């Protein structure tokens, strides 16, 4: 479980996040949704410690992450897996080396154990026989899956996915969403997915936080979101004429 309490963040006097509090539940696919520029990515970066919030605290289970010393922060970070918007695979490393990277860096596993774990993770995300290929040699969808394999290689307790299906076709996007959802259930992780894709919201949104202009406007789940009364969220959900007609 990850808890954020009263998070605020400004850049050059412009308040990007305003007093956001929320509980991201364990074993569930938690979604942060909102328009572009609403503060979703900034909130995530504050949670994982890439940015320091001006006010507020972040708790990983019972650990107050925002007040940890650098050494203790590293311990928590080893329990975090993150899937970036552009996959963020290391260009100079092969698929196998990318997935093995955290294992080689942080564990004392033997080379055989590392390869065994890498193959297991790659099989779990349905990437077969691509171990020696480089990120530039595989498709965007495959890159995302390799990035998921890298994120889960250390058996993390917390998984962050920043717009995991951006730039993917709808079929691949659903496959990636389902994969994230399945892995969350399988390993009982606290997963946070940032998205503005309504397909994802309706497919995997078990616990949803809606942000608009840096302010929390709504929280709920995929069943509740279709009957929402909050104007900003209603406009977000029913932006397409097709959905508007369906609603009527």
């Amino acid at each position, binding site marked *: 479980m990850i808890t954020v309490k009263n998070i605020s963040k400004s850049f050059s006097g412009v308040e990007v996040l305003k007093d956001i509090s929320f509980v991201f539940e364990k074993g569930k696919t938690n979604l942060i949704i909102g328009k572009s520029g609403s503060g979703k990515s900034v909130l995530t970066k504050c949670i994982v410690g*890439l940015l320091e919030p001006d006010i507020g605290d972040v708790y990983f289970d019972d650990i107050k992450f925002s007040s940890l010393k650098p050494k203790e922060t*590293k311990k928590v970070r080893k329990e*975090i897996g993150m899937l970036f918007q*552009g996959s*963020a695979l*290391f260009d100079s490393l092969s698929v196998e080396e990318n997935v093995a990277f955290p294992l080689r*860096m942080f564990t004392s596993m033997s080379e055989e154990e590392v390869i065994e774990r890498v193959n297991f993770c790659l099989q779990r995300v349905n990437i077969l026989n691509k171990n020696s290929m480089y990120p530039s040699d595989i498709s965007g969808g495959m890159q995302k899956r390799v990035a998921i394999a890298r994120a889960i290689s250390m058996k993390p307790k917390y998984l962050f996915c920043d717009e995991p299906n951006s730039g993917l076709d709808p079929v691949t996007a659903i496959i990636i969403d389902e994969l994230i959802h399945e892995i969350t259930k399988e390993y009982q992780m606290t997963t946070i997915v940032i998205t503005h894709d309504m397909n994802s919201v309706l497919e995997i949104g078990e616990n949803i936080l809606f942000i608009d202009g840096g302010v929390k406007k709504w929280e709920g789940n995929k069943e509740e979101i279709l009957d929402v009364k909050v104007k900003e969220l209603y406009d977000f959900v029913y932006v397409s004429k097709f959905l508007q007609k369906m609603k009527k």
Partner: protein
Amino acid sequence: MIGNLGKYMFMLYHIFFKPEKFSVYWRRFLDEVIQLGVKSLFIVSLMSAFMGAVLVIQTATAIESAWIPDYTVGFTVKQSMLLEFCPTIISLILAGKVGSNIASELGSMRVTEQIDALEVMGVNSIGYLIGPKILAALFIFPIVIMYSMFFGFFGGGLVCYFTEIIPVKQYLLGIRTFSEDNFVFIRYALTKTIVFAFIITSISSYYGYYLKGGALEVGKASTNAVVYSSVFILFANYILTQLLLI
């Protein structure tokens, strides 16, 4: 200006943090030795050989006199190559090749969130990415410069052999003349090279690592890396010459 200096010092401070795993960093160091040093050998040997060759022709033409012995050409080539051409000119060339490579590599990693990925994993990204580059350059650049000296003399020798502008024997005699000072000159050249290696890798890394923006900024970072590395090499060259030779 002060902000940039502060960030640069912050970067240097983080390089010396204890590595997460020594074996991974050692592999990175070896990779960088190949990337920064071994892969520069071709251009360095080409440049050095031609510099040596041209220097022989220019010197021989300039001092064509019955009163000046032929071996003076070899001696002049040796002094020029040891003291200035190999350590400084080759370092400036390396600033262009290696500096732009480092800045664009780190800049692209920043833009594509690969550096963020390292940080989220709990890796000291500065130590992991920049530390091995600086150490590899400090180790391999002096070797590259020694290699460059050899090819410079070799290029000069080839010109003597094929054009007979001066006899090869006289050229080699010139190279060997006052050889008791060679150790001092080589030490001076290598000291300069180590300082230049640090300047090139640290400044280029700084511009790449702290890049903000997209592809356009990657190009600008590469240019800045080369320009500032070159300017600082020239300053350092003057100061070191003043300190070490006078």
